């Protein structure tokens, strides 16, 4: 399914292309845009909570942040701009919008795309799956035996005292319980199976989506090339 969303790298390319177009507009309005750049960030998938003991030991319950190399080098903090400049940026941001680039990102609010529907269906089907339900029960029983409980309103995050040390300790116990309940990645695997089944039913739409994504990325690359970004960074 990830083939139909932007990868970390593709997302950086598209966002950078949009930024260039917005700044073109700002400069056209008579303002000088300060140098900008830096790496992009992407978060670890935590739909069913922490699944890696190694990452739990490092980050606790928090998601691992992956870095996606940016197309422009990192810059020091941008200087404060005048009110007029800020207004121009807002105006340009609104007028340029996404510059015709589709937002192919998982989990966007209000997204009614086919891939979003597939994901939501797979989530619903997973939650009703007998194997998943049994897994979750076993996991919760294990957590309770260790004196742990789930955070209110969050179905996969385990409550901790708040200190970094306790957060890591709890996250490690969480993964331990998942491993003993059938594997820390088990719910992700069940989800993936439902997702794959859904994809078969929508393959034609997904193929069109893949083409749309490729075209958007290629267009983004061209925008970046036109703005002097070296091919090596694309």
């Amino acid at each position, binding site marked *: 399914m990830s083939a139909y969303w932007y990868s970390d790298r593709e997302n950086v390319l598209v966002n950078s292309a949009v930024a260039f177009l917005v700044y073109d507009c700002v400069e056209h309005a008579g303002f000088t845009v300060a140098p900008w750049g830096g790496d992009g960030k992407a978060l670890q998938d935590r739909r069913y909570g922490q699944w890696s003991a190694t990452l739990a*030991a490092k980050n606790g319950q928090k998601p691992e942040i992956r870095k996606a190399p940016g197309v422009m080098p990192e810059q020091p903090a941008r200087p404060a701009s005048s009110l007029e400049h800020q207004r121009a940026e807002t105006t340009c941001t609104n007028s340029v919008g996404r510059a015709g680039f589709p937002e192919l990102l998982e989990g966007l609010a209000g997204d009614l795309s086919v891939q979003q529907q597939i994901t939501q269906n797979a989530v619903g089907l997973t939650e009703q799956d007998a194997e998943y339900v049994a897994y979750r029960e076993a996991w919760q029983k294990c957590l309770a035996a260790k004196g742990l409980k789930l955070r209110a309103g969050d179905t996969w995050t385990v409550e901790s005292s708040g200190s970094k*040390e306790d957060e*890591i*300790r709890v996250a490690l116990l969480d993964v331990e319980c998942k491993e003993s309940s059938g594997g820390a990645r088990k719910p992700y695997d*069940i989800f993936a199976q439902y997702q794959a089944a859904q994809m078969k039913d929508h393959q034609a739409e997904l193929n069109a989506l893949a083409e749309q994504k490729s075209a958007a990325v290629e267009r983004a690359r061209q925008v970046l090339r036109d703005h002097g970004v070296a091919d090596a960074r694309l």
Partner: protein
Amino acid sequence: MAWLMPDSETALSRRAMTRVPRWWLLLSCVALVVAGLVAAYWAGSAAAASAGPHYEPPAEIPVSATVQKRAVNQQAILTGRVVAGATSAVRASLPEGTDRLILTSTPKAAGDSVAPGELLAVVSGRPLLMIQASVPLYRDIKPGDAGMDVQALQRALVGLGLAVKISGIFDQPTQSALKTWYGNAGFEAPSPLEPVSAATNGGGKSSKASTVMFSWREFVQVPGDTGRIASMAAVGTLLPEDGVVAHIAIAEDTIVARANLLQAKDFAVGAPATVRAGSTSMDSAVAAVSAFVEGDESKNEVPGVDITLPIPAGAQGLSPEQSVTVTSGSVPPESLAVPLIAIRQENGIAYVQLSAPDGSRRIDVTVTAQADGWAAIDDGGGLAVGDSVLLP
């Protein structure tokens, strides 16, 4: 014209027969040529087949591995560094009657150990004697003086094997012991009656003065009383304004490595560990484990605990700040193990294909650990040492 038609047809058919008088010969020739081509093709194929290797789709050859009993060692490996041990600076004070602090001589050199009673150095002609850290050096002690500092001095003298009664009074026996100490170091003890200077050096002779004093400026201390000289000023040099003569290492260099809380389980105090620096490898053991330390992402430091290990005696080539790796030395128990690639998965269940004379059959397994390309499996899964499992 009506009569011409039959004549014409007759004439045409006659002409055709005239061009091919025996038409069946043509068919025979064609048949012969075709037969010849088929025969030539067959003969060529047969010759090629007999001349070269005969290629056929390779039959699938099952590849299997043997179930073994082995320790699948999932050792934790940390990156650490050599941390220099704490040092204590030893300072000289300007003796009366002298203008500058010059290191006159020293019997010690970098790397030498130091202990109470020893002569550390001679500065501007006067000795610097090592004395126990328990003696409070805040005043000169003259004959008849009394106090806790005198008592501590007397204990220090006893510690050096000198006969002194712990009276708390700087009495004659105490002065005699002090004179002996100075004498052993090759100096005269200072006298309260004449100023202490380089001129009062006796070069091993005992003091002619009937009474001696304790001049605190001629004694130096280090925490813990013993240590090793980390650095020493060169003889003949003018000491800096702060009077530092030497730095004494009062703790040995150690190795410190950060372990995350998962790895920390393998590094309890006393646990064996292997330290590697370049091609050098040495055994050590965990000496201390710190409290939890929050990491610093900007420095690529993970949150966890700091593991401290001593540098093994005789270890060569380790210098402060050098990078090392620390590997947990705990050896896991042996269990059934198969190559990792033999483990297959279906619906999240791990299994292996057991090779048997009558085919193969699936055996579900529980993988308990994996390392170095091997998977440790639970003993109760229906496999035994020597069984063959198919590799995909």
